[in-house]
């Protein structure tokens, strides 16, 4: 199966289509299944393929193997011409098992670079993916259903679904995840490195707040909230997550300037890792909080769902805002001060120490502009069974959350290219 100089049909053009690193099976026997899926994905991004050349090279250059499929043409093009064109979806299943089975011993348990060269059908696509417009679309439409010379009918997968999130590929996405996790771990480790009580401090802070507010606030209110302490603590935990994340994430890009100036990596991991580490803290604190809650006997079956709703919206909003403020803070350092100031007001603008039911109804519309209202109401409903956010409140809050998140992502994406210039 090794060929050095395959002769190609004149109409096929060769195009290196991607490089992928993979590792042959961990066990004794090499199993190619892990990369079978990946090759299929690589192939699906291409429109129309008449053949592939796969080169598997061990990373330390000790061995490599070249596989050409279908067999090189040369002796008698006429015979093989009948086989063309192959539909890409069919190729991996024909060829990959062969690689897997043939992989000799030195191929096992090592790292490889797999480079794939796809032979496009020049006459049809010019070796390019067609642009999806006007005339081109007709072409791609014709290619959707294709009959080969044997009369077999195939459908090709035209959509390049495998580029997700700002054009990231799967590998990049995995790397993003790994990096994000490493940074989060770093964040968590660094925070509790030299503390004696570790993350118990996370509970201590809202606990103190709760004791003070829980003592003072009820003196001024005629109709107290049921289970006020628990109600308060729920809100405080969530608020601490939000305010800590936002106030730490906003200047994070500026603080990590040495990273920005040194290496190229998705910049968003810096603020998001801070949020993620706070989220882990928050969830851990909440789990501790569950112990007294179980004795309170207010938890119902719906609690988990309400909590999840609250948590998802809260995290989404936190990410959106943090991306926005951290990106803007690079250029305009006022943003950091602005955030610090507004967080103080924001605390009182969010139903944490009071319940929304204590607010005169004619003023209720004000809270619709604060996306935290719904999130925190959901959580309070989960814990002490207070009232859920109304439909109008929920709708307007969600709308703002989505708008801010999208704005945050777009702003961050645009600004991140120029971070270096301002640091």
């Amino acid at each position, binding site marked *: 199966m090794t060929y050095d100089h395959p002769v190609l049909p004149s109409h096929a053009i060769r195009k290196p289509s991607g490089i992928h690193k993979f590792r042959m099976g961990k066990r004794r026997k090499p199993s190619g299944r892990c990369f079978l899926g990946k090759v299929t994905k690589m192939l699906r991004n291409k429109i129309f393929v008449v053949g592939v*050349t796969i080169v598997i090279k061990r990373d330390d250059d000790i061995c490599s193997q070249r596989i050409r499929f279908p067999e090189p043409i040369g002796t008698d093009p006429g015979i093989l011409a009948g086989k063309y064109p192959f539909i890409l979806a069919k190729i991996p299943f024909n060829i990959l098992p062969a690689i897997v089975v043939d992989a000799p011993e030195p191929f096992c348990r090592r790292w490889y670079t797999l480079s794939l060269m796809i032979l496009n059908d020049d006459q049809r696509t010019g070796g390019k993916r067609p642009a999806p417009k006007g005339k081109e679309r007709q072409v791609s439409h014709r290619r959707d259903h294709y009959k080969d010379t044997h009369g077999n009918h195939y459908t090709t997968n035209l959509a390049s679904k495998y580029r997700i999130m700002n054009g990231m590929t799967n590998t990049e996405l995995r790397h993003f995840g790994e990096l994000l996790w490493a940074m989060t*771990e770093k964040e968590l480790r660094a925070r509790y490195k030299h503390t004696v009580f570790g993350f118990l401090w996370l509970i201590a802070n809202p606990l103190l707040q709760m004791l003070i507010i829980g003592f003072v606030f009820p003196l001024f209110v005629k109709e107290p909230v049921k289970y006020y302490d628990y109600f308060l603590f729920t809100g405080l935990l969530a608020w601490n997550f939000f305010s800590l994340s936002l106030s730490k994430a906003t200047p994070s890009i500026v603080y990590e300037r040495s990273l920005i100036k040194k290496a190229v990596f998705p910049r968003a991991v810096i603020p998001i890792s801070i949020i993620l580490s706070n989220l882990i803290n928050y969830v851990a604190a909440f789990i501790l909080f569950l112990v007294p809650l179980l004795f309170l006997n207010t938890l119902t079956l719906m609690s988990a769902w309400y909590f999840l709703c609250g948590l998802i919206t809260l995290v989404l909003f936190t990410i959106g805002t943090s991306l926005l403020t951290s990106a803007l803070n690079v250029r305009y*350092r*006022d943003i950091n001060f602005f955030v610090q100031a507004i967080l103080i007001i924001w605390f009182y603008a969010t139903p944490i120490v009071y319940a929304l039911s204590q607010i005169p109804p004619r003023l209720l519309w004000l809270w619709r502009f604060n996306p935290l209202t719904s999130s925190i109401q959901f959580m309070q409903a989960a814990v002490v069974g207070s009232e859920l956010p109304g439909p109008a409140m929920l709708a307007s809050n969600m709308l703002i959350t989505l708008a801010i998140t999208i704005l945050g992502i777009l702003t961050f994406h645009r600004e991140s290219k120029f971070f270096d210039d301002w640091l």
Partner: protein
Amino acid sequence: MKPKNTIAIRLINVSKKYEIHHEKPTLVEKFVKGRNETFWALRGINLTIQKGEKVGIVGRNGSGKTTLLKIIAGITTPTSGSVRTNGKVVSLIDLEAGFHMDLTGYQNIYVNGMLLGLGKRDIDARIRDIIAFADLKQFIDAPLFTYSSGMALRLGFAIAVHADPHILLLDENLSAGDASFQNKSRAKLQEFFRKKKTIVVVTHNLDFIATMCRRVLQFQKGSLIQDGGIEVLSNYDPSWKARV
């Protein structure tokens, strides 16, 4: 055989404009003053570097050399023009950057390696080499604030060279650590030079360029004014003589 893509770096009409901010700008200033002063760090650079080429860049301070490296590395984006790089780029610019003082050397290798684009499994495979190269021995499990500055620098260098770059960008500081580590790092760099890696060096050490690079570029005020062999060096600095 197959028509390989032999180009490692291609810049087409790349320009970079910086806004001069004398102090950190504030929102108010932005609205009051409108546009800032600007400064062109690079103007209309066209450059093609083939795979395996070793290129030295010379020029006075502020001639745009470092900006060029940053643009190639992707750390900053050109104001206009297009940049294409083929392969993984690693720059040895700030070696100690990205270390967290409270984490151990071991943990720092993971964080830093991932920032340089390595996957977790890549690092797993290389971590022993990295530790051996940095020569940290038992300190690897100690937090970084206990390290001497030379140790941190060594660790930074070790991670960067084990990131397995296709394109290596070197900026000025080619020295890290004591004499023995310097020899080791020089040997490692020479290994990179021997291999088919593409290397771009910015330095004022003309001897280094003369011995290592075949192609030399000279920058002046953001423009590429000379592109040629070693003879560029003697044009750039007439007092310098190649030691043959």
